[in-house]
């Protein structure tokens, strides 16, 4: 044992609270990072999918012979070839792996093929003859509701239902269908292991749930399927559900060859779920001082053809239907209907986005009716720690700085009076269509709230392992890095807890570690971060205990000023710790929607500044400034990155992003027609991070991914309302909504 003395005191590099550079930055910047699109294997086949061209049709026949007759085609599989469970689904397995007797949405997979190359696979897919008998498609959500075609109904009643207020405002609001549009489409590779099992490498937010679903539909033992975390070009909810995963594994096992599939952009638009379009009805009642005394809401979400996560999205929409405000008399009725529209499911904000547009529009109406400043009205009603959530009655236990959010927004300086004389800064951009004298400026505010982590009694856990290596330590996890920076922050947490500088994160497959749960619900930093923190802390304690040391650092274990175990000796040992972290338990709510449904909450507020050309209906979003409750910013640069990116998705929903439907058909499934904001559409963002101790996340951190998207849409809508004088009851706001109301 070494007895070197003289410990250099100092903090390790890259701990929590700092912003170390992304460890995956270099490979991503050099084009060496392997995305699912880039995977290849010896002897690999290419796959393609046959999709229903009808929103609803009976499948009378499928003739695969013409496809099999094409040279180089190795497999054409239909519903009859699904070896195990014929259906899949995140909450209810109701979606056919391949449509059997009936296709229920436009783009539903009916058959899959594998061939020597991509062109041949696509030609084979086109050669399969499917006999469709079109059926009447149910595409009107109200009609679906009348026919009781529903995935879930929600009913929330809290407090005395007879309470009435002196001031009443009512409104009806609509939110269009948004797409996550991650820049990388769905892609994957399945490799048969030669013993009846398969390794899957595919775009995912949740490899363990993919693995479970592949196991079920392939009729395999769990140990025969390994799902591997893979490089992914964004997610935003689009990767929570299975899409090509089961198909790839079926084809790989059928052909005995590795099989790869990459969705084209137009296919991606049908291949993943979307944000639910919503129809909201609200009635807010307040006393003359502006205190909310009664809120009634009705929420209709179109879940499309299959369940996906509609139940949970609807629950979220209903639980957060009042927003970050207190009110003791509440009635919310919600329904998630089943139609022949595309299935909807998870997208950043998960139900909280849609209702936020509704309740914040209502708060502005109420402020107007009361002749009160909109932020003052919000402050009077602010929901804070110790208050019951207006809907479920759950008393907020963790910090919820709603008033501080409001005060921060109030204090932010406004930009110079506009409009600018730079053509690119005018509504319509460099098309030079607006003239400065026709442009008016508007400022709008909105606040939003959302749960963090999974709710309603789900057993929400994440496992992580911390292992000592020659160079430091490695954190092993199956949690997915979608770009948000988990790979950076888990290492920071382990560095802080261990007291060392060199920590890497390794994404391992489903056979090597238990689930980390989904990279969604703003949860991984808190939950996988929590597991990493606890594993690292325990490991450090065990190491110090073993060597009777008092400090662990990059050199090894120290007792006072003496290095009692150098790192090389530690690395030679078998030091590892595996921890499964669970957040505080939640419960399913009762028949009135009452109960402790959520583990934690986050609040954020946005102030939007827009210029509007009312005659042309054009909008330029100049600024969206924000104050956000982050608990503790473990990596301030990543937090700001999430905020800036999340705000732009909210701006997109406010002014341009919508999947336009025509009788169940997506009319704009390309980036030419589904408009995504460019840098010229992107507002400047000033973000104030509000830090408060007390959340159960590591070091008090809260999830930060979703709040930026929740109230930014409503703030932009409010600003357009202020500039244009129009009611603005629908997002995205289209030119005709402003110019031809």
């Amino acid at each position: 044992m070494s007895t070197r003395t003289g410990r250099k005191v100092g903090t390790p590099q890259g701990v929590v609270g700092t912003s170390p550079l992304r460890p995956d930055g270099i490979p991503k910047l050099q084009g060496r990072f392997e995305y699912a699109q880039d995977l290849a294997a010896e002897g690999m086949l290419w796959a393609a999918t046959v999709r229903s061209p009808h929103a609803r049709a009976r499948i009378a026949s499928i003739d695969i012979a013409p496809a099999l007759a094409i040279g180089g085609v190795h497999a054409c599989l239909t519903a009859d070839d699904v070896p195990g469970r014929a259906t899949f689904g995140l909450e209810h397995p109701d979606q056919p792996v391949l449509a059997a007797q009936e296709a229920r949405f436009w783009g539903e997979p009916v058959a899959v093929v594998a061939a020597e190359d991509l062109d041949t696979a696509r030609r084979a897919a086109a050669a399969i003859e499917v006999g469709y008998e079109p059926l009447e498609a149910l595409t009107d959500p109200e009609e679906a509701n009348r026919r009781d075609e529903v995935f879930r109904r929600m009913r929330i009643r809290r407090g005395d239902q007879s309470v009435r207020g002196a001031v009443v405002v009512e409104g009806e609001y609509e939110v269009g269908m948004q797409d996550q549009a991650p820049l990388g489409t769905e892609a994957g590779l399945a490799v048969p292991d030669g013993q009846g099992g398969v390794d899957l490498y595919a775009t995912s937010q949740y490899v363990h749930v993919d693995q479970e679903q592949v196991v079920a539909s392939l009729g395999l033992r769990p140990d025969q399927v390994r799902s591997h975390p893979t490089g992914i070009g964004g997610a935003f909810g689009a990767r929570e559900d299975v899409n090509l995963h089961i198909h790839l594994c079926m084809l790989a096992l059928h052909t005995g060859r590795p099989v790869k599939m990459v969705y084209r952009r137009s296919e991606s638009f049908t291949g993943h779920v979307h944000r639910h379009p919503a129809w909201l009805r609200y009635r807010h009642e307040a006393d003359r001082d502006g205190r909310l005394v009664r809120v009634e809401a009705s929420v209709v979400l179109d879940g499309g053809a299959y369940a996906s996560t509609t139940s949970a999205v609807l629950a979220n929409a209903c639980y957060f239907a009042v927003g970050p405000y207190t009110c003791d008399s509440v009635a919310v009725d919600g329904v998630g209907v089943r139609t022949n529209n595309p299935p909807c499911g998870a997208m950043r904000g998960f139900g909280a986005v849609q209702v936020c547009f509704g309740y914040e529009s209502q708060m502005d109406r109420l402020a107007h009716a009361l002749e009160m400043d909109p932020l003052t009205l919000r402050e009077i009603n602010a929901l804070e720690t110790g208050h019951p959530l207006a809907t479920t009655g759950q008393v907020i236990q963790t910090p919820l700085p709603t008033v501080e959010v409001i005060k921060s927004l109030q204090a932010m300086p406004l930009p110079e009076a506009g409009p600018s004389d730079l053509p690119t800064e005018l509504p319509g951009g460099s098309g030079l269509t607006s003239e400065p004298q026709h442009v008016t400026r508007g400022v709008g505010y909105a606040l939003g709230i959302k749960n963090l982590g999974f709710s309603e009694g789900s057993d929400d856990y994440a496992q992580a392992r911390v292992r000592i290596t020659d160079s430091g330590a490695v954190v092993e996890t199956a949690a997915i890095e979608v770009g948000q920076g988990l790979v950076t922050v888990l290492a920071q947490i382990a560095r802080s807890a261990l007291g060392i500088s060199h920590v890497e994160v390794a994404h391992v497959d489903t056979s090597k570690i238990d689930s980390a749960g989904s990279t969604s619900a703003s949860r991984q930093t808190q939950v996988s971060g929590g597991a990493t923190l606890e594993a690292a802390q325990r490991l450090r304690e065990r190491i110090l205990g073993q060597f009777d040391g008092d400090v662990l650092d990059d050199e090894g274990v120290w007792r006072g000023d003496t290095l009692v175990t150098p790192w090389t000796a530690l690395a030679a040992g078998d030091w590892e710790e595996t921890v499964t972290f669970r957040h505080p338990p939640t419960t399913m709510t009762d028949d009135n929607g009452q109960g402790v449904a959520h583990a934690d909450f986050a609040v954020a507020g946005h102030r939007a500044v827009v210029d509007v050309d009312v005659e042309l209906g054009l909008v330029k979003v100049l600024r969206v400034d924000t104050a956000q409750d982050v608990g503790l910013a473990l990596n301030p640069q990543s937090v700001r990155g999430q905020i800036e990116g999340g705000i732009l998705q909210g701006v997109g929903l406010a002014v341009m992003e919508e999947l336009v439907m025509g009788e169940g058909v997506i009319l704009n499934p390309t980036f030419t027609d589904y408009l995504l904001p460019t840098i010229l559409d992107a507002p400047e963002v000033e973000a104030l991070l509000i830090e408060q101790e007390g959340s159960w996340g590591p070091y008090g951190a809260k999830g930060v991914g979703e709040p930026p998207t929740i109230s930014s849409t409503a703030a932009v809508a409010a600003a357009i309302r202020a500039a244009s004088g129009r009611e603005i009851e629908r997002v995205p706001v289209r030119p005709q909504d402003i110019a031809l109301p």
Partner: protein
Amino acid sequence: MIPPRDITLLVNGREYSVQVEPRKTLADTIREDCGLTGTHLGCEHGVCGACTILIDGSPVRSCLLFAVQCQGTAIETVEGLATDGVLHPLQEAFWEHHGLQCGFCTPGFLMLAKGALDEDPSLTRDELREVLSSNLCRCTGYQNILIAVEAAAARMRP
């Protein structure tokens, strides 16, 4: 089907002799036949700019070109940006300023910015915004991409 042609492409200073159908895009050829998968496809039809590369120094969308058109040109992809393991100022700046998250759009932005700054390193912030507006990023909100490109421009000025 029109028979494949034998062509030679000069990519990042190296010659690749490949056999491609005349209708094969340059993007697919670079990715599949040259094995350079750093060039990404986000839309396959000229909107997103993820596939941006340089041809004779100018940024172009490789999904909108056929490989057979590009014989005799000098093609640069993201893989050629760092020299002998030393990052290009743009790569450094994107890393330092958190100009990437998922990174899928990043090669396209790097090549777009390189083409623009090689031609005119004195582009102003507003001019850079116009240049960068030809590519899409779904993760970052663009703020850090602009900051990174400005920082790189400062370093690239003679």
